[in-house]
């Protein structure tokens, strides 16, 4: 029994370290405290709301978020804007609908069920407007990058002057954390580019943290309920395991073998 647990834990550790070493490059990303990590991790509501503001006012001019709907912004576990606020947010966007009875496409104010309006009609249009580089959709961006939130958070603050000797083409920028250090996106955030309604100071660091938190939620909208359910499930399993363990001991006490 003891040997079994010992061996099993060795296997688990080897297993996890092997898996983690799979994410090939080891880069020291900037660190910050993410409220959503850990067994009890939850989103910081204020940060989500500010992050949404940064996304809308800055990122969304190039980056779509096509799997997220306006209604999600009011749902539990998300930014949790009030119903009225979400309706107002949705209505502030023009959505192409149709065809109507005359066979025409028309514009109307957004509804809760609409997906977030995309900045470009399609991928080609996005590329054409951005010097050939497609600004990736942000719905699952955090999960689609090896370093996850730390990578996005660092990237946003990783703009620097290129080291001497490195020649950058026009429209290409140097970023410490980008794969290959060359990025087509110019530094998106600068001090005070947005004005937070709650009085938080809009430093680049603060905005990076807020928008990354928002992106984490966009990629994992059920993260909070996952953590809550996980805790309950694991506690339940542990209690049941203990009960079954003693039942087993009782049953096996009839035969003279150690379990």
């Amino acid at each position: 029994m003891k040997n079994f647990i010992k061996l099993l834990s060795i296997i688990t550790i080897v297993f996890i370290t092997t898996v983690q070493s799979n994410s090939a490059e080891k880069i020291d990303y900037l660190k910050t405290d993410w409220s959503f990590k850990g067994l009890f991790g939850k989103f910081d509501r204020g940060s989500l709301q500010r992050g949404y503001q940064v996304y809308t006012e800055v990122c969304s001019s190039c980056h779509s978020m096509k799997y997220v709907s306006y209604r999600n912004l009011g749902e539990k576990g998300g930014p949790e804007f009030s119903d009225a606020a979400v309706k107002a947010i949705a209505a502030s966007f023009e959505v192409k609908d149709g065809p109507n009875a005359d066979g025409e496409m028309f514009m109307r104010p957004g509804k809760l069920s609409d997906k977030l309006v995309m900045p470009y009609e399609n991928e080609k249009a996005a590329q054409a407007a951005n010097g050939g580089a497609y600004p990736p959709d942000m719905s699952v961006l955090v999960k689609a990058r090896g370093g996850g939130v730390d990578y996005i958070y660092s990237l946003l603050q990783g703009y620097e002057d290129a080291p001497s000797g490195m020649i950058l083409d026009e429209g290409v920028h140097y970023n410490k954390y980008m794969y290959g250090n060359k990025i087509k996106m110019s530094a998106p955030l600068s001090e005070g580019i947005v004005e937070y309604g709650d009085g938080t100071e809009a430093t680049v660091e603060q905005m990076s943290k807020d928008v990354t938190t928002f992106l984490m939620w966009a990629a994992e909208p059920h993260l909070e309920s996952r953590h809550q359910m996980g805790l309950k499930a694991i506690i339940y399993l542990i209690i049941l395991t203990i009960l079954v363990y003693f039942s087993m001991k009782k049953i096996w006490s009839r035969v003279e073998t150690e379990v």
Partner: protein
Amino acid sequence: MSDNEYIPKSKFGKWFNDRLPLLSLASHLTDYPTPKNLNYWWTFGGILTFCLITQIVTGITLAMHYIAHADMAFESVEHIMRDVNYGWLIRYIHANGASMFFLAVYIHIFRSLFYGSYKSPREIIWIIGIMIYLLMMAAAFMGYVLPWGQMSFWGATVITNLFSAIPLVGEGIVNWLWGGYSVDNPTLTRFFTLHYLIPFLILGLVVLHIWALHVPGNNNPIGIDIKKPSKDTVPFHPYIVIKDAFALLMFMIVFAFFVFYAPNILGHADNYIEANPMVTPAHIVPEWYLLPFYAILRSVPDKLLGVIAMLSAILILAALPWLDTSKIRSAVFRPLYKQFYWILVADVLILGYMGAMPAEGLYLLIGRVATAYYFLHFLVILPVLGFKEKTIPVPLSITEPILGGSSNLALAKNKESLDK
């Protein structure tokens, strides 16, 4: 099956059982005499059954919401993750369930290797097991293609391209597999149907695997033939059932940890990028459970020979009952084999690590040495060891060493012969 004649108590039960002996089967399964010294490594059979059922149930549920179309697959997975009630839970159980399934199957296989469970009279159980393992790999590979992310697409491209190594007809076979001239919608739809089919084939083989097991009965840690039923056995229910349940629950705690707290750690980030035939990922890496074989494939410079080496690495296992010439089953009584066994475990882990690294420089070299050793173990070391090894005397029954109060098994055996 078992020698006991079961007679149902009720009249209806007897009537039914005479026509379809389901009650006899149930009785056989509950009474099934099991060696009482089975350790926890033997609980993985039950755990694997749990894994298979979990995959089938979650998989069927996912199939109700998934759309097998190149333009819609990725989006439908996001739909499951966001809008389907508890869709995220079902998908994460299914995705991590595949990893848990392989973790359990590797422990199950290596348990068999340690205790010689593949040896006579259990060769058929072992060969069916290898067939299940092959089908599992096929099912897992095709399942990984379904979300239609970048790794799905490029993994499918790399693996199907292996068939092009076959001389003359290779290209034709690849096009036939793809249903076109590249991995595209026809590939996705056929992978989906096969991914749905294979688990039921596995289920059928699992029934045969257990049936074949119930003929000779379980092997056990000291690897001796035992009389059944006897002092050495306990009925399957409740003894083994409760022990399996306990082990399963511990396994489920690990499983739950992955599902709820690290659901994406075993996957690759690139698979959250929608498949794009125009962009190749920097490193195309298979899922962790296929890495050792991927390392073997890449360690051979020639494509065709590489494919042959990879396939042989798996198929060689089917010949294991005849490659291992030792009559003694359990490694407990084979001091030399025990050492080689652990070297093999290390070798496979090294291969897995090399499979995850880029195939260049030192990684490639170590991968080649490890590949060579893998085959050396099965083709040279095992056959020779059976003749050369000095084994420790094996006790005559399970109860002997325990009742004798002595852990010295050789002593127990001497005592037995004195008693006679």
